[in-house]
């Protein structure tokens, strides 16, 4: 069944000639297009591009050449990651007709590895949101419960992966935008170390916090996708030189003696059923031989104000480029240059983008810079220090991803501050720049998925994947 395929099953199928990459791509496109009405996960399909890659894969296989680790794998790309010749909207009206003239590095690496890109997925406008309700193209519905949000901002990528209309997907994470939707939809979502994946071609939201990360239905598929897109890229000066280890080779299930920290601050405001699921997950880790200890990350309560100052400040600067000159949309009320800027932006941006541009401009403005922006950067240093201290005692930290499971569409959209507060457990990993992920950890009595977050030291993706994979194989998915 196409909706449950794994990367290794596809590799086996191609090798045994059960199907060709072209046949699989056609079927996957047909399935994804037919199913899309249910969730609105895709905004644009890219059949020409998908079939061209599939044809290259088939040709390589026919010639006995290695077709790459993602050969023939149908994938989806969040619509904030640019694709040459394929519309990239960022979930915004402003970019409804934007056709990028180049590919993001992650996208070219996927296609070089044989990955077949089916299309672009829905998201909150410019990746700003926690529910996917801020998309100009309508909300995404959670495939697990269609009246609920899939989380955000990578809601379309999470929904497509959960629904089976993509084997895996790329998302982007600035304050939890990969992990939180992964947890809401019951899939794996990974935010790698800052700089592990090139940001070239990721439309900038908050540059010091932005990450590209994979979503998949298993830890090993997510690890393989991360493997392909990781590594130094000279087009992104912040991309890391550190060599990329073989993530799959560490998935040996051996986590005996690993020290796991449970930060007490992350369990204070958690909904009871979510807390119960995470507690059950921790029991699984204990059975695997992990040593569990309580730790403290005392600066956690300041993470939300810190994050919303830094991300909005950076966003207000990054979004200045949408001024009616270069990016497809210009207001008809453009009598003067100044009116063109103001009205293009006023009519083009949705409410959440405007709110963040305003807050970011305010905290950077004269007289407030030191009190807000510089203060937040100092608090950010303290949050990073919290983690450094913790990792001198433990190998990994385990927490909930979100205080509660997927909520109903419309339930929280009227209160921006409440929505911001829901990011409390996910913004810290981005602020510190450490690798973190969501791994499915059962479901509530209503059947809503719960995600367990694993965080490790900078560049310790191997340790994170080993623990997540051992957890998954020990029945983390089944809800134990």
């Amino acid at each position: 069944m196409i909706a449950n395929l794994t990367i290794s099953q596809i590799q086996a199928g191609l090798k045994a000639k059960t199907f060709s990459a072209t046949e699989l791509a056609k079927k996957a496109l047909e399935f994804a297009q037919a199913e899309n009405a249910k969730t609105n996960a895709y905004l644009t399909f890219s059949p020409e591009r998908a079939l061209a890659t599939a044809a290259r894969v088939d040709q390589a296989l026919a010639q006995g050449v290695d077709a790459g680790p993602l050969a023939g794998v149908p994938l989806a790309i969040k619509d904030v990651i640019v694709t040459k010749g394929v519309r990239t909207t960022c979930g915004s009206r402003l970019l409804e007709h934007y056709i990028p003239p180049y590919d993001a590095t992650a996208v070219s690496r996927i296609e070089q590895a044989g990955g077949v890109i089916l299309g672009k997925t829905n998201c909150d406008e410019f990746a700003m949101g926690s529910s996917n309700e801020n998309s100009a193209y309508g909300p995404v519905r959670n495939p697990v419960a269609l009246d609920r949000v899939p989380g955000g901002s990578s809601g379309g990528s999470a929904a497509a992966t959960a629904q089976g209309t993509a084997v895996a997907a790329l998302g982007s994470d600035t304050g939890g935008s990969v992990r939180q939707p992964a947890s809401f939809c019951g899939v794996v979502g990974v935010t790698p170390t800052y700089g592990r994946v090139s940001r070239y071609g990721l439309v900038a939201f908050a540059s010091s916090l932005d990450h590209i990360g994979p979503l998949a239905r298993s830890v090993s598929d997510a690890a393989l996708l991360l493997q392909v897109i990781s590594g130094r890229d000279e087009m992104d000066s912040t991309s890391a030189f550190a060599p990329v280890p073989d993530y799959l080779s560490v998935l040996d299930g051996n986590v005996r003696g690993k020290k796991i920290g449970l930060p007490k601050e992350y369990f204070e405001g958690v909904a009871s059923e979510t807390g119960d699921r995470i507690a059950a997950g921790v029991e699984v880790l204990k059975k695997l031989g992990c040593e569990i200890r309580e730790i403290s990350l005392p600066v956690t309560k300041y993470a939300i104000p810190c994050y919303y100052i830094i991300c909005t400040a950076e966003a207000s600067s990054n979004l200045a480029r949408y001024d009616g000159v270069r990016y497809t949309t210009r207001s008809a009320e453009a009598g003067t240059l100044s009116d063109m800027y103001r009205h293009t932006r006023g009519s083009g941006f949705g409410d959440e983008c405007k709110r963040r541009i305003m807050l970011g401009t305010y905290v950077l403005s004269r007289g407030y810079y030191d009190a807000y922006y510089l203060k937040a950067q100092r608090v950010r240093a303290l949050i990073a220090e919290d983690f450094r201290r913790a990792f001198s005692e433990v190998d990994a930290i385990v927490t909930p991803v979100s205080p509660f499971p997927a909520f109903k569409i419309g339930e929280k959209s009227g209160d921006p501050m409440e929505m911001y507060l829901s990011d409390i457990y996910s913004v810290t990993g981005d602020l510190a720049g450490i690798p973190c992920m969501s791994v499915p950890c059962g479901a509530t009595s209503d059947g809503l998925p719960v995600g367990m977050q694993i965080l490790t030291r900078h560049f310790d993706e191997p340790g994170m994947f080993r623990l997540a994979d051992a957890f998954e194989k020990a029945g983390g998915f089944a809800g134990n």
Partner: protein
Amino acid sequence: MKITETEVRDVAGLANLALTDAEVGRMARELDEILTHIETLKELDTSGVEPMAQVLYDAGETATLRPDVERETLGNEAALANAPLAGNGYYKVPRVIER
């Protein structure tokens, strides 16, 4: 009140963002709530803490520089392809200088 409607209008001016009167009122209320929450940072003593502008990891001092080699550029046509208004190889905008 942390922020007045007048200040909202000033900030919107700095951000080149046209807001309707209704938006100004709503923005003032919402920003006020957010700024009140942000105030909690004041409780935290950060004296002597270096501001963290970027995630730090070990990298050689000049390691971020790529070799200075010429390479193909995007080209004028591709660069202008998404412009709402272009002509003669340039972006076109409303007249700025009267002659």
